[in-house]
């Protein structure tokens, strides 16, 4: 089998592809990176990414094309899939071979995973990033492609990363947390190296900035531990939380969050915070 791996700068998916065996070729959207195929000029949008891939495929005829999950690659993958009428398997976390057919395991939210296979060839698959592998230097083939005058990237500005997206521990505050308690919550967060997020109503009244808002209309997070303080657990909020462990503190015994939490503390937030000072040394300082 011939595999084509498509990356942007870093190759973070080659390990997963290698496990399947087969002949591996790498195409990169960044012409400075180490790959078998690189573009002759910069790729800035899906149309150009797609025509670059069309050119590479004319030379290679791969059986499977893996895309790493960078935004520009995801866009190019879907554009390519539309142009060629090929099935595209989204965001696969795991791969397996089933009698010569490749199956991707795709997370579907709410702890659901679907095993998906493609019935068209080449199989297109977006792979969730794994660890970055330094590629040995390869003499690349420069591939020229048709640039597009329909779309133009005018500027790229470095934006600061949102710490809540990568935090291992996130403390979510909801309406059950009074404004006057916030300094305590901040101290608690600091003591366990956590970041603070909030629900929509709190962002709406300006208690926390909008980039801290977790949920359907805010950001989604995937920490190891999520501590929900005074959060009822509305779907719009919970759908943005993909945590391994959820701990909930709420004075309402019927709060829906308790159907998602591993530890369900039915006490007022201020009481729990006060008690925490007694049992958590780093917090009481």
């Amino acid at each position, binding site marked *: 089998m011939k595999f084509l791996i498509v990356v942007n700068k870093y190759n973070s998916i080659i390990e997963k592809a290698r496990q399947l065996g087969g002949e591996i070729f790498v195409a990169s959207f960044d012409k400075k990176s180490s790959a078998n195929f690189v573009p002759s000029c910069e790729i800035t949008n*899906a149309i150009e990414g*797609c025509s670059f891939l069309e050119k590479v495929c004319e030379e290679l005829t791969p059986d499977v094309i893996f895309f790493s999950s*960078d*935004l520009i690659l*995801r*866009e190019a*993958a*879907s*554009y*390519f*899939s*539309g142009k060629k009428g*090929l*099935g*595209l398997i*989204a*965001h696969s976390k795991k791969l397996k071979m089933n009698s010569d057919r490749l*199956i991707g395991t795709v997370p*579907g939210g*709410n702890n*659901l*995973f679907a*095993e*998906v*296979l*493609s*019935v*068209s060839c080449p199989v297109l698959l977006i792979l969730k990033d794994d660890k970055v592998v330094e590629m040995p230097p390869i003499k690349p083939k420069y591939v020229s492609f048709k640039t*597009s*005058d*329909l*779309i133009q*990237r005018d500027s790229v*500005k470095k*934006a*600061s990363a949102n710490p809540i997206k990568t935090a*291992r521990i996130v403390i979510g505050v909801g309406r059950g947390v009074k404004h006057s308690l916030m300094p305590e919550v901040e101290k608690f967060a600091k003591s*366990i190296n956590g970041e603070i997020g909030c629900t929509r109503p709190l962002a709406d009244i300006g208690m926390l900035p*909008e980039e801290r808002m977790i949920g*359907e*209309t805010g950001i*989604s997070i995937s920490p190891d531990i999520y*501590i929900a303080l005074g959060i009822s657990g509305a*779907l719009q909020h919970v*759908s943005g939380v993909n945590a391994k*462990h*959820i*701990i909930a*503190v709420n004075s309402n015994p019927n709060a829906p969050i*308790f*159907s998602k*939490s*591993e*530890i*369900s*503390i039915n*006490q007022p937030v201020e009481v729990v915070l006060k*008690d925490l000072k007694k*049992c*958590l040394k780093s917090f009481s300082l």
Partner: protein
Amino acid sequence: MKIVVNVKVVPEEIIIDKETGSVIRENVKSIFNPLDLLAAEEGRKLKEEFGGELIAVSMAPLQEGALLSTLFKYGFDRVILLTDRAFAGSDTIATAFVLSSVMKKLIPDYDLILQGDYSLDGATGQLGGEMAALLDIPFVSQASSVKMDESLQVERLAEESMERYTLKLPALVSVRRGINNGIAVNLFSLMDERKKSVEIYTNKELKLPEGRIGKSGSKTEVMNVIQVELPFSTELIKDGGAKHLTDFLEKAGVI
């Protein structure tokens, strides 16, 4: 300006039939995909500024017509429901084929297509790119701002950078969370829900080739759905919660 918003109807809660592996829709409330409503708000703002027409297109079962007719009160001028048994089981590429064919057949003079980055139930985020490719138009996703002067100006947040694009119309843009606070009912359009009606098209009118739509037009197959149960306890701790919390954090190696 003729603005089309792709609106998906999704179940409010995703419950999986463990026998069949499919999403249960019976007795589950249907809602609009939240991100599509954010796209609708961007469309409404553009229409307000430049005039024109705001059109919703949705591929859904016939019974969702009632929900779709509520779109009129948000200021939509037309709501188009695409419904046919032949569309059932479409994956993203088959759906993209149906939607792009509808653009060509019913709204060939469209200027802009807007939609949410992904849907609550499928969440592949692929429809936009596939549809744009089928229509041969430029495409940008994860938009955090959509503005119009001589051409379309889109700002989007890529991994760790803010990028600004200029797109020639017609174009397709999908919007990210937080682009706006959602769409509000337009008082002037409140009565429209009763006055206007949803336009319904089946494949009888559209005449799309069967090999490109529904299950037979799909190129991916879901073999199996697995549900991973998260540990959760229904037992409520009424006293000494702080101690439980610190014990847990200690065990997890956090403190």
